[in-house]
């Protein structure tokens, strides 16, 4: 009896780990890795989704893409959006973190308040801000008015629309960044500050020589994560502006969506998708290097 059991077990043991990871890996293969390959393949074809065959066109899609002024505009918008969203939210969050990194229930409440937008659906957030940015009845114009400033047309003006989107995403992610910064600050050992105080280090020097360097892994982490996320902006665009007015808020993912689902230019949209993949890929490599460093430190 025992002998039999162990023969069975001996057959079963080497396959067991593979069976355990199989379901998850199948999902990853089917919905993450294979699609990437498929998309790269599609980017070299011309296909309208309806016709039965896909025509191989080489790099024609890429040539068209880079010749298209609209795509230039889209890239410009995406980079501008990313640059401003990331720098503004990181700057504000760092200041807030330095200020609010204290014990006490009041600080906890304020931290929770700042964080709350982060867990709310982007749809809700978008609609809410659209309402507040309503050019005629919106609350924001009332605030501008209160400060004696002229009203803005917000999302309905090509000059200001993208800033409206930036404002919304900064508002949404500042809380997350702040709390990550606070976590980073709290992981700096108290003793280092005490030693610095014993050495009579002035406040600004403690900040620039201790706080900032010790916080740099956190800063780097947030920089990468925020940048990757900003490049993928979609929900706010789709809900608030649909890329308009006049493409002034059209950005990469929305552009891919538009071309794929509205114009059925699958090959062309895939080529744009590959461009996004490359951008995110490069950032991800950075992130990976960072992660492996973290693992190493532990």
């Amino acid at each position, binding site marked *: 009896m025992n002998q039999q059991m162990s023969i069975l077990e001996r057959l079963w043991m080497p396959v067991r780990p593979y069976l355990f990871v199989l379901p*998850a890996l199948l999902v990853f293969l089917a919905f993450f*890795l294979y*699609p990437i390959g498929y998309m790269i393949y599609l980017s070299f074809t011309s296909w309208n989704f309806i016709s039965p065959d896909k025509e191989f066109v080489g790099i024609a899609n890429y040539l068209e893409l880079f010749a298209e002024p609209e795509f230039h505009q889209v890239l410009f918008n995406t980079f501008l959006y990313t640059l401003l969203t990331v720098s503004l939210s990181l700057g504000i969050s760092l200041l807030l973190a330095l200020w609010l990194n204290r014990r006490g229930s009041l600080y906890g409440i304020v931290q929770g308040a700042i964080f*709350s*937008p982060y867990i709310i*659906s982007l749809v809700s957030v978008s609609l809410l801000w659209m309402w507040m940015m309503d050019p005629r009845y919106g609350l924001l114009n*009332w605030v501008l008015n209160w400060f004696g400033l002229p009203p803005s047309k917000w999302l309905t003006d090509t000059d200001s629309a993208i800033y409206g989107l930036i404002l919304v995403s900064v508002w949404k992610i500042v809380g997350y960044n702040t709390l*990550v910064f606070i976590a980073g600050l709290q992981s700096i050992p108290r003793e280092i500050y005490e030693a610095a105080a014993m050495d009579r280090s002035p406040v600004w020097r403690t900040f620039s020589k201790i706080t900032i360097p010790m916080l740099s892994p956190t800063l780097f982490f947030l920089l990468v994560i925020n940048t*990757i996320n900003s490049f993928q902006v979609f929900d706010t665009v789709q809900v608030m502006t649909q890329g308009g007015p006049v493409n002034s808020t059209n950005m990469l993912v929305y552009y891919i969506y538009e071309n*794929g689902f509205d114009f059925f230019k699958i090959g062309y949209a895939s080529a744009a998708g590959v461009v996004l993949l490359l951008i995110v890929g490069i950032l991800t490599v950075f992130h990976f290097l960072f992660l492996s460093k973290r693992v190493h430190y532990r």
Partner: protein
Amino acid sequence: MPHVHKMLKWLELAGMMMVALIFVFPFVWMFLTSFKSLQEVIQFPPQWLPETWLWENVVKAWDSGPFLTYFSNSVLVALSILILQFLTGVPAAYAFARYRFKGRNWLFGLSLIALMIPPQITFLPVFLELSQWKLINTLWALILPYSASAFGIFLLRQAFMQVPEEIVEAARLDQASEWQIMWNLMVPMARPVLVTFGLFSFIYHWNDYFWPLVMTNQELVRTLPIGIAMLKQSEGGVAWHIVMAGNLILVLPILLIFFLAQRQIIRAFVYSGVK
């Protein structure tokens, strides 16, 4: 001197109130708008409180479309994803944490790559793939692609690796099977991580707009975020009171969870990202 100190304290307090207001007031405004009449909405300067609280706005919003379907779809999708991720994640994380086998690091690297690839990149090919399988416009299109979470596996593996080897050995001496060790010993020990991840996953998929938008175009399989966004289009122009009332339906459950489990949620989103 104590005077100055006191002044500063008050100043800080005022500052904190201001900051909190900037982040919380929009929600308050949403709430107030939900109960106003159209006349009150299109007033400038705005009127703060509704004259009479029109609770029926919520009912109007709810009745403007098949919201019961949206709502139950949302719950069904988020919960199914959670359960599937748990069922696929636990064995995978256990194998990655506890077994040595050929190709382990390689396969784990593969899952990490999956973790790094956002749906915003893969949606087009996945859509084509799912439409080949005739799954577009079914709830499967919303559930299947998320039925395993690389992030969850990553967190769970971490937790499983921290369980001392001796405890597993003690269980082996107690004649426990591997299956028992995994589900009855390791999973309970990883409970904090499971709660963390569960909150993260549920909130993410409850809120998700992008994926359901891309994968569905029929009312029957839509989720709440899509329904709310459609509300804006169908009600049009300035019916903000109805739109905000619909918004409440989407936001309140999450705010309620946040209120009840603020600490765990912050940990779920913040610390799991950092560590």
